[in-house]
């Protein structure tokens, strides 16, 4: 297993390098440069020339990429062209925000998806199953921003229970923070749980119908024991993989949800940086996002292996 982990990590490094190169050249192909985006409407040829020189934009693209890569090897992610501050410090606060949102979402997501999955599987074909399945399907079909706007108009505007925007910069206490984060968290969970619930239902049904579960029941084990210790671990595999993808999706930035709730997360920073052509920031975020995908998938694979003695 350690060999597998090492191989995977080696592959990960190669992927990261490839991603950085691809992203860099893609951004190069976008029209304009950071100097134009910064000065916008007020640009004059002289001010553009001065700014380009200051930002080293007059170097060739190859030189700029190599320079970025060599400083990265010494641990330096560079300086944001636009915000004029160290990239690492710049994206760290956004990553912390996104991690916080993902954490809140996961806390709700795991019991909801496993619980609903179990409910639909054991009540299959009955009312509970149909009701949950329909609700889950509806959330699966609705885009996140629709869910978000619906929640805002109901819970923030009509009922005035919760604040509409996640302006977490103004939070004074943990209680306020929870209030501010409530609506985006629920939105993400609603959008994300659907797949996991359905996946959980299918795989649990398959396991419950298998002969070893029948065997366990015939041995006279209590029902809850059979469900929790015999059926559930074997049914979790697919749900864990889906969860890994979901976590990576959240860390990659739920741009639309962030935009609806004005949440200062990593996704919007990425979008803004692309529109400013702020290359060092774009590259750093790509690497973080790619890294998140690689790590979460690796962790998911390891979990699946741990749960299944046959793969150990």
């Amino acid at each position: 297993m350690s060999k597998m982990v090492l191989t995977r990590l080696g592959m990960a490094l190669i992927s990261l390098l490839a991603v950085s190169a691809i992203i860099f050249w893609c951004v190069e192909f976008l029209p304009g440069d950071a100097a134009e985006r910064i000065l916008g409407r007020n640009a004059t040829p002289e001010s553009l020339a001065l700014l380009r020189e200051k930002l080293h934009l007059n170097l060739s693209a190859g030189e700029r990429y190599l320079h970025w890569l060599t400083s990265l090897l010494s641990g330096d992610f560079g300086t944001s062209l636009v915000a004029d501050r160290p990239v690492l410090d710049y994206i760290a606060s956004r990553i912390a925000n996104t991690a916080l949102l993902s954490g809140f979402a996961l806390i709700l997501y795991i019991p909801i998806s496993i619980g609903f999955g179990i409910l639909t599987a054991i009540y299959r074909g009955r009312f509970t199953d149909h009701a949950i399945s329909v609700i889950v399907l509806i959330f699966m079909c609705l885009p996140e921003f629709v869910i978000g706007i619906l929640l805002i108009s109901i819970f923030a505007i009509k009922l005035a229970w919760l604040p509409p925007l996640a302006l977490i910069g103004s939070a004074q206490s943990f209680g306020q923070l929870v209030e501010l984060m409530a609506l985006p968290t629920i939105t993400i969970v609603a959008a994300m749980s659907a797949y996991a619930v359905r996946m959980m239902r299918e795989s649990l049904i398959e396991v419950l119908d298998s002969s070893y579960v029948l065997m366990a029941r015939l041995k006279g084990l209590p029902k809850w024991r059979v469900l929790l210790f015999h059926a559930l671990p074997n049914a979790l595999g697919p749900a864990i993989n889906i969860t890994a993808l979901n976590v990576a999706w959240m860390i990659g930035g739920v741009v639309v949800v962030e935009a609806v709730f004005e949440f200062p997360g990593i996704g919007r920073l990425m979008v803004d940086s692309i529109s400013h052509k702020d290359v060092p920031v774009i590259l750093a975020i790509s690497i973080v996002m790619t890294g998140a995908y690689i790590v979460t998938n690796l962790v998911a694979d390891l979990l699946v292996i741990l749960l299944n003695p046959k793969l150990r």
Partner: protein
Amino acid sequence: MYGKDILRISRRALLATTGAALAAGPLATALHVPKAFAQPKTLRIAAGEADGATGTLDPALSTADPDAARINLVFERLVVLDDTFSAAPQLATSWESNATGDEWTFKLQEGVKFHDGEPFSAKHVVYTFKRLLDPKTASPGASSMAAIDPAAITAVDDLTVRFKLKAATVEFPALIANRFTYILREGQPESELRTSGIGTGPFKVQKFVPGDDVSTYVKNESYWRAGLPKVDVVELRAIPEESARIAAIQSGQIDLCWDLGRAGVEELQKNPDVKVVTTRAPFVLTLSCWADTPPFDDVRVRQAMKYVVDREQMLQLVLRGLGNIGDDNPVAPWVQYALKTEPRARDVEKAKALLAEAGHPDGIDVELFTSETTPGFIEMATLYQAMASEAGIRVKLTKAPSSDYWSAVWLKQPFVCSSWSGRGADDALAAPYLSTSDWNETHWKRPEFDAFITEARATTDVAKRTELYQKAQQLLRDDGGAIISVFPDALGAVRANVSGWKLHPQQSTKDFSEVSIG
């Protein structure tokens, strides 16, 4: 089959979850820092234009609207503009020029202190203007103040500053009442100016980091105007999505916002917790075509394009009546020096005749670029397309992305939607229409027009100066390439417990010193 067992599972799951929530608690609290003050009055304001990484506090380099808000909290100018765009004192108490209008002397306010205690005096004014005009600063404002000779700005004494100009400028005080001329403290390192400038304004910077979502400012306890400011802390952020801004003010997450659309205002007018604030502004919404490019190079075509517009309908449908009618003249009728004309009435037959005369009996095909970058562009372009089609002007609408509209479309395409924030007569005429302007969006170059403006700037007699500015406007109205049908009002809103705030028609002027809460 497993029905009864479910309860136990969910209890376990519940326990596991609460455990995780408790464990996550300390981590989460560690992530946000703000401390509670002893009941400070905090004013939370939200700009409508995106802020983000480009944000700056450096007045010489400010371009975006949130920058203007920030700068107005911290800094002050010698001269400000009143509602009709005439000059009024701020850090200067009075001014006078020599007989020819090329030497100006400003008396400065006594007893003003910078945030660090340094007394405000003439040397800071000299420093500010020299820096602003230095090509190394690369200020976008430098070209509009090219008349100032940087070497001839002198501190006569501690409270007197003299400017010698390269060319006579009678409206010099109004010329320097722009978004770039806020007075900096001499001796502050250049590297601090972007994020922690020291000014004389009502608030001091507490925390501003470009790219962070909120910046905070605290009351300047030794502010020179007695009794001001009326709040202790200001929190500034940008909420570019209008519906989000409206939701935020409705629910009380923010106290004050501006840049609202017409639909948003109607929604807010129904809410008793919110007060809508409007100001008549000479903000220009225009359709601009290149007067040197076919088919627009024929004045008859340009006139036909103006005759198809039903201005009243534009006002009602684009702005829902919240604005004023324009007559293809960027100087709104209530602004000083304005030429007051009867707005051109719609005349489709005349437009057709003019087109035929110009050699287009079957009409013309044109491509109009629009974008969501300024509210009203899409509506204006769509309505214009419908109005123009009746006269045989077939408009093909192209919607361009708003992110790079001003760098990729404006000044690059021959027929575009454009907008200009409200300004005084001279600036409104000179910035977009002088032959030599960097922003000549209509490629309309008339030496007579340039001469009127240059002469007006050097004419000390008010009546004569007015006449010259009006001649320039008449020429532009009849011959120019800009179709200016409406001036939208500036729209904002405050919570019901907020008072003392007015929107200024000069968009970059945002005075929060008199705003109070409760």
